[in-house]
């Protein structure tokens, strides 16, 4: 019997206890996967949107999820910055639209490159800046139950639905698109915008342009498209809250595993005494107990990851999330969860292992 067989067999001596412990820590790992999957989904959705638009740099004011409005003439000075190929205003609002409690409304400058990233699935794009028309992302059309020729009410005004588009990103597909002046009028934000999207010239050095823009635009946030979401305070807060919740679940799980390992050690005092009497070194005993603990947690990790992914997939199709947030399910998330499981295993196994390795064999054999 190998060392591996021996330790695994120990876990199977009390199958119910092992299963319950694995389930306990598995739920904790599952919570990590589910909660971080939601947080990263939020950030990933926006990253995908920037990627789909072909935006390299984003200018905004404020660091929360809702950017503060600023003068839309600022874009003119941005356009003069060396290395900037195209810069365009983007006014984004989240509004309650008809039966949908929250929806992204994207007001775009007529003729800007942002319209080019929208692939028309049905109908057409607005035929000019003045047409009182909107196009809907595929998910938005589904959520609003709208088709071509219908109208949609945005705050106090009605717009004709002239097209359905594939924005090639979850955020874009869940949005309503219209010409910026219409949205400015409805929101009473004439001559205001809340984002400038920048596409760099092919020969430009992104870091140099970024540095230059940061100098020129004091008081504004200037980030690469990727950093705009990853450094966003709202996203960071959401992720921190989810980490906090996960940490509590993991802590509870750690104590559960530790308890199981202590119980196991107490029950096997005599047996461990025999192993020591047979010549097993303290380090080997220590390794055995830690290995048992880690094996428990790796099993829990597998179950937890499957549980977390399953939960995310179910959540993604619920009415609360469908069309609003696409959870992130990636190998890196699973790997992190598995690393955490191993970490929990090491942490919860070390104390019982230390205790076990100090057993006096003669005293243990008398038990």
């Amino acid at each position, binding site marked *: 019997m190998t060392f591996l067989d021996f330790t695994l067999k120990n876990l199977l001596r009390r199958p119910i206890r092992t299963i319950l412990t694995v389930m306990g820590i598995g739920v904790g790992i599952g919570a990590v996967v589910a909660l971080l999957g939601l947080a990263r989904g939020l950030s990933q959705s926006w990253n995908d949107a920037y990627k789909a638009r072909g935006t390299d740099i984003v200018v905004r004011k404020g660091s929360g999820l809702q950017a503060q409005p600023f003068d839309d003439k600022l874009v003119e000075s941005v356009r003069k910055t060396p290395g900037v190929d195209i810069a365009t205003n983007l006014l984004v609002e989240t*509004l309650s639209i008809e039966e949908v409690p929250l929806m992204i409304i994207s007001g775009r400058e007529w003729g800007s490159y942002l319209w080019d990233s929208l692939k028309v699935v049905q109908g057409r794009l607005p035929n000019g800046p003045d047409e009182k028309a909107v196009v809907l992302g595929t998910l938005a059309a589904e959520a609003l139950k709208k088709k071509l020729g219908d109208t949609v009410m945005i705050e106090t005004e009605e717009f004709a639905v002239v097209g359905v588009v594939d924005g090639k990103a979850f955020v874009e597909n869940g949005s309503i698109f219209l010409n910026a002046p219409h949205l400015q009028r409805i929101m009473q934000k004439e001559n205001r915008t809340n984002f400038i999207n920048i596409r760099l010239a092919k020969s430009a050095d992104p870091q140099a342009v970024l540095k230059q823009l940061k100098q020129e635009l004091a008081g504004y946030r200037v980030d690469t498209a990727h950093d705009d979401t990853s450094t966003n305070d709202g996203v960071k807060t959401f992720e921190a809250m989810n980490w906090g919740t996960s940490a509590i679940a993991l802590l509870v799980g750690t104590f559960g595993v530790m308890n199981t390992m202590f119980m196991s050690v107490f029950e096997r005092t005599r047996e461990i005494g025999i192993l020591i009497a047979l010549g097993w070194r303290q380090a080997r005993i220590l390794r055995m107990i830690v290995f048992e603990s880690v094996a428990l947690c790796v099993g829990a990790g597998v179950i937890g990851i499957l549980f977390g992914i399953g939960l995310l997939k179910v959540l993604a199709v619920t009415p609360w999330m469908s069309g609003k947030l696409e959870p992130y399910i990636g190998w890196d998330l699973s790997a992190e969860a598995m690393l955490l499981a191993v970490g929990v295993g090491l942490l919860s196994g070390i104390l019982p292992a230390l205790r076990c390795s100090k057993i006096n064999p003669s005293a243990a054999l008398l038990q």
Partner: protein
Amino acid sequence: MRLGIFLTTIVCALSVHAEDTKGWSASQFIAAMKEAKPKGGTLIRVRIEQRNGGEKSTILAQIKRHDMGDGGTEQLYQITYPKDRKGEALVLVTKPGAPFSAKTFIPGKGFTALTAADKRSPLFGTDLTVEDLLVDFLDWNKHEIVGGEKVRSGECTIIESNAPKTGSFPSKVKSWIDNTRFVAWRIQVFDGGNQPAREVEAEDVVRTSGGHWVPRTFSVTNLAKGTKTTVAGTGSDEDKQYAENDFSEATIAAFAQGPGIK
């Protein structure tokens, strides 16, 4: 109670800075809330969901409010969605020491003045009534602190306000006022009995750009009927300057027509 009281507390009363309120009397709380009344106009956009058993209906509305020169307040409640009800409106004018004046507008039917007998008629078919919008327990003169309790994130003082006249409805209002944010987390309205007839509960409060704490979402439960209306703020604008004719009948009627899609 319902939208009126809540909006009164939302729009009119909720911005006193955190102070040590230990030892405050009920009247001091009420006075502080009234003192915090913002000046100028406001525009609030709300989403109203009415649940009646398994059925749910949604109304989007805007509420415009402005102070009149004579100390009175004019409020306009206007439906923006659904489309077939766009423009339905209620205009309320209240002046200290004077009876209320109110009228409704239904596109195609025109304006109808409301009388005292219409006070209990529903607002836009929801659990809210005109009376709810009118009643302002802050103006009553019998207030008493009856306890304290934490409601959600707010440490609250419970104030019981009794109607000045016996036999009036509501007879009593109990409000849970946040000790630091001066926002009402819960309001219970009594119609004479010992059990509340209606209850309003805020789900979350936010600070507006003007520095006022306001409930963003609150629910109104008609405990007798078992129906529930949820009102969620979707946008607000303080210090709004309204033109003289923004509250006129012609403007209200024109809103129903809308600019169209041409």
